[in-house]
């Protein structure tokens, strides 16, 4: 219930978050990152995670940074009766940057998409339907962004990931990444008009 309320508050404040205008210069950002799952709950009685990796592509728009991302992370079984899996997270993302220093921004945003469980290590999985499970998932993201040069940034973020399985899965991540920013070509600027 507590998480639901947090989600509700987030959606209520979402419009307020996006009314801050952006600059008219459109940019594309490509980032790669490494993530570590640092919390412990009942899920971790069955699986432990290894560090994961991912990439994100985002575009600067009036409402903030919008884009998509993919992250891969392996979860190894602890209990013999269950199965290990790769967690593949496909998501749309939204980020907003608040400047707190000439070279430092505060980052807030969210992701939503599908979290796929790809079971991989058992011979008794016979059909494709048994190999995959997919579920809707959201992430709330916050952190800091450090400008390294005009087009390079480093980011340190933490995220709360809620996967809406029948027995909910809640994961917290710490993530470090590096981002390269490009100037958007004319056709892309037109697309975002």
């Amino acid at each position: 219930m507590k998480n639901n309320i947090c989600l509700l508050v987030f959606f209520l404040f979402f419009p307020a978050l996006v009314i801050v205008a952006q600059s008219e210069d459109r940019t594309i950002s490509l980032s790669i990152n490494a993530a570590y799952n640092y919390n412990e709950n009942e899920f971790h009685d069955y699986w432990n995670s290894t560090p994961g990796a991912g990439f994100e592509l985002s575009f600067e728009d009036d409402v903030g940074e919008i884009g998509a991302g993919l992250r891969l992370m392996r979860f190894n079984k602890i209990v013999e009766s269950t199965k290990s899996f790769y967690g593949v997270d496909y998501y749309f993302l939204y980020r907003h940057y608040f400047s707190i220093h000439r070279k430092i921004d505060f980052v807030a945003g969210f992701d939503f998409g599908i979290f796929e469980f790809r079971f991989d290590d058992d011979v008794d999985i016979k059909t494709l339907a048994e190999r995959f499970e997919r579920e809707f998932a959201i992430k709330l993201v916050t952190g800091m962004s450090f400008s390294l040069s005009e087009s390079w940034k480093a980011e340190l973020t933490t995220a709360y990931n809620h996967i809406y399985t029948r027995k909910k899965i809640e994961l917290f991540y710490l993530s470090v990444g590096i981002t390269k920013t490009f100037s958007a070509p004319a056709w892309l600027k037109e697309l975002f008009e």
Partner: protein
Amino acid sequence: MKRFLLFSILNLTLFLNMTFSQSNNRIVLKSSELEFLIIKSISDIYTILPHLDLYTIDGYRHTTLLNSLYNNAPSDIVLLINGTKTHYGVWNKTNLSQFPVNPSAIDSIIIYTGPLLYNGVFTSGVLIDIITKVPAEGISFNFSYATGNETGDPGPYRYTKFDSENVDQLGPYTFFSGQYGKKNFGLVYNLMHHIIPSTDMSIIKRSPGYNFYNHQLQYINSSIIISDISELGKHELFASYSMSGDAVLGSIYGADLIYIDELSRELPYQNKNFILTSGNLIEISPDADLLVNLNLNYNSVNQSKLSDEFQFNSDDLWLYSKVGYQSSLGAINYLAGTSFTYHNMQNKLTDFNYSRSIPSVFTSLTAESIKNMTTRIDAVLRFGGNSSGMFICINNELIINEEHQISFSVSYDSLFNIQNSFGYRIGKGYTFNNEYSTVINSSHSEASQTSLNLNYSFYPDKSTSIAAGINFSRYHNFSFNLNDFVFSPEYNEIVNAQSELFEGVNGWTGEFNFSITNKISKKLLQKLYYRYISAISDNEIFEDAMKRFPRHRLFYSIYYLPFSDLSVYMTINYSSAKEWIEYRNITSEGDEYYNSRLNNLFLINCGATKTFWSNRIKISAAVENLLNTKIQHHPVGGSFDLTFFIKAEVDLQSIIRF
């Protein structure tokens, strides 16, 4: 930049024009409001219509509560397209989700709650008239794809003690539309396709003879709309062919389903439907018009290949014509006319063949009776055995000044929608090859209804409207089947332990409603609606039967346009508890699916739409049941968890001009 500004202004203008038009029993949803929502199929409009009392078993098919309540007073949804009646539906159930119009081609939707006469068309339930857009000049294309995922899969817990049933994705819903428009002429071609799984455990549990797994419903429709304005007047033609159940695309076969209220079970079927309607407004003179509407509807319902429980065929042919003359006589504007309905029902497996003809005459008179007061009188007489009856309504609207308006109406009717239920067919000699043909009590005694309405509207400023109304309805001589549905673990189905027919059921209902619409700013609109309804009667059966209507209903919606290319909305829906007397013994120990009492419903939906490329591309995302509470609309219906939807639409207007 110039084009961007133009689109921004257009968007803003649409938003400012968005109104919540409601007077008495009339609601108008304009495309500017619909564009905020993630419309996957047209029935999604029900999520913003708290004024309607509907139930759904599976979230895809909806029926009015009144329709299944009294067996001598059918009152389901009557569907019109551009003002012409369509007789759309399977038997007495109208599935708006499958109505063959691309949601993006809709200009507005007019909704009335009956009893009422609307341009010569009578309904005692709900009337929905879908008005389509006029195509833009040149050739245009529209394509959309929407899909959803109900949460609650087991995920990796599938291989642990926390294993649970799988839930499926919803959709996809795919639409394509090609349009050609030039001055006074429009041609629209629509193609739509739905895939709908029915894997809710509440349905599976009581359907042992039908394997739902991996057999999603496939629905495909192809339709055209031609509109023309000539010196003679305005003409429209709508033709549609649809198939459900039998796969057209891909190889997966699945059945369509109809929920039979009298049996409390689904009937799997496959369907072919053809509709042809023509609406014509012919100008006879500058102040006189002739309305000519025609409709042909052929509906063939057959046993599903996936179920041999029922072996049946049911072919229905509807022919409908309406001719009306509208003009003025001094200070009186009038519409007078006649309609004729022919209905043929056949079962090719048993030689059942039954036909009926139902003529009617109608009139509507409008005049300014005293200063600032308009009086309107509607009347209809229908002939044809059990379908005969009359309706009369007198409505007065008084405009006190710019800020205050009052309306008062009184109506009487012994007329209901044309009988077409499962029970009605059985009564006419239609048989299935099993025992279900004999278990239905039906009554055709004449019922009547009297309604009194008083409404007050207040417009304190240009951005706010406040309305309040009271309504009293008297139900007279209704017939109610008091069934006793229980779940049989032995047969894994719901059985009717006892059925008793109560005739001569009388009672009153009282209703109070209140609504506020407020444009906080040019970019922010909010609406509030509250309704209280209660039975006023010493008839115990009437009071118990009416408990399926929630006493309190509260609805709040907010629409926000922070940027010209971004819109967001949120709706909050509360309904108090409901009870279904015929399901009073449905709950058994340890059963989490069937409930005789449906607890308070608290539902929050929200969504956002981002447009790109000067509104040519739209990406929408929505979350239904944000708080992930258990939502159930019927005692044996599915429960709906948090569901996520996404929709992508490409709208290329006037890409080729001549």
